[in-house]
């Protein structure tokens, strides 16, 4: 080192904490989505088309709307959500923007949480369109059960996003990412579809919330376990 070398400039401030950094990442992802709107529109169109196909395949004399609609909603939501999740890390691969994110001093967990927050807002926005669309197609009494159904939708979205964000990161650099993401994620989505379907069937039928609670408890437990596990696992998926 030369004797007259000036001292290295110290870092002028400390990096943001976990939640602050996560929110910065989420804001960036949402800004990209708001700027392009391509993913949201594609996913909403996909969800509505899925509902239309299910509707025309439905024989109302064989299966009642109340029996069929919850299954249709959660299956459509799952596949539409997968489309949105795939895009989550897709924006990072182009021009290797993810490298700049990884070189930054924020924790890997903050990157995962930021991506998950943005995905949750994205998926919730899709649900805001999909749930009324299902109610419209199947003439469901949404008014009475709107709060309960909203809670189920939020819990289902958290579970889907927790798992899907992790697998999106794992698969994004593979050649078959579009196929691998659903192959890895769908088995983990089974508990979400099962519990959400059971809970919403009861709520739409006008049953008391207490009847849906056991299913909601399972869904809450799933969300907690997978949100924690996927946050911890995320940094390991980044090892080459």
């Amino acid at each position, binding site marked *: 080192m030369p004797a007259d070398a*000036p001292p290295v400039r110290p870092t002028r401030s400390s990096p943001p904490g976990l939640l602050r950094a996560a929110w910065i990442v989420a804001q960036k992802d949402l800004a990209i989505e708001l700027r392009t709107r391509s993913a949201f529109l594609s996913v909403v169109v996909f969800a509505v088309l899925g509902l239309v196909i299910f509707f025309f395949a439905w024989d109302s004399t064989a299966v009642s709307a109340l029996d069929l609609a919850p299954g249709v909603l959660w299956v459509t939501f799952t596949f539409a959500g997968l489309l949105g999740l795939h895009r989550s890390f897709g924006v990072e691969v182009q021009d290797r923007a993810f490298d700049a994110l990884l070189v930054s*001093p924020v*924790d890997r967990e903050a990157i995962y949480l930021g991506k998950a927050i943005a995905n949750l807002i994205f998926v919730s926005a899709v649900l805001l369109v999909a749930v009324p669309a299902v109610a419209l197609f199947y003439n469901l009494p949404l008014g009475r059960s709107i709060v309960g159904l909203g809670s189920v939708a939020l819990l289902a979205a958290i579970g889907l996003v927790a798992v899907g964000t992790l697998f999106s990161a794992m698969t994004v650099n593979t050649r078959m990412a579009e196929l691998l993401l659903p192959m890895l994620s769908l088995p983990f989505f089974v508990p979400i579809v099962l519990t959400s379907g059971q809970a919403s069937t009861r709520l739409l039928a006008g049953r008391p919330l207490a009847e849906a609670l056991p299913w909601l408890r399972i869904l809450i437990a799933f969300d907690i376990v997978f949100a924690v596990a996927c946050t911890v696992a995320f940094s390991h998926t980044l090892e*080459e």
Partner: protein
Amino acid sequence: MSGTVPTIEVSGLEKRFGRRVAVAGVDFTLGAAECLALFGPNGAGKTTLLRLIAGLLKPTSGSVRVLGADPRRDPIGRSSVGLISHQSMLYAPLTALENVEFTARLYGLPDPRGAALAALEAIKIGDRASAPVRTLSRGLQQRVSIARATVHGPAVVLLDEPYAGLDEAGASALTSLLQTLRASGAALILVTHNVSEGLALATHAAIMTGGRFARFEQGRDGRPFDAQRYAADYRTLVSRAS
């Protein structure tokens, strides 16, 4: 930070991808305001070495220290690094300012917008700050990428072919920025195929072949390297290695 801690310390660094050895036992140290020009043919391991120093890759063995910290594990180590690569590492739908400001926020700078604007001005692209990156030419994107990598005033700047795609004005702005960074105490590692361009700023020079430093030397008494002699030596070494 003690004045005796090297800015970059690489010891016994090795990286294997399966059976392929990309970097094989590289050792060197670089102090404040020093610049290593790194040359080598394609596939010599230069980019892998930079990615190891940036903390993007896990070494198979050996260690990297930036201001005494491991950049892979220590956020302080990473906060001292700025990386410029072939790829712009930018988000195409966002504007130049939004991209650089995003980085400034990740580094916790007190005035991210002000810092981003200053970084764009420093590389002479302030007038295109509000243009979406996708609408900029390759050279202008590279300038935004340079602003992104230097907005936090890094102590270590890793540059992988930074002059690629830059026009004369951009190249001149980059050279001026690198001189300013060095004057402020930053250590630079510059990977390039252009020997005279690389040696212009260098205090150290190395030639890498087959993952190793085939040659590493320090400039004497602050005198510049003899680019012509070095280019001839480089060609000889590379042809011998291949």
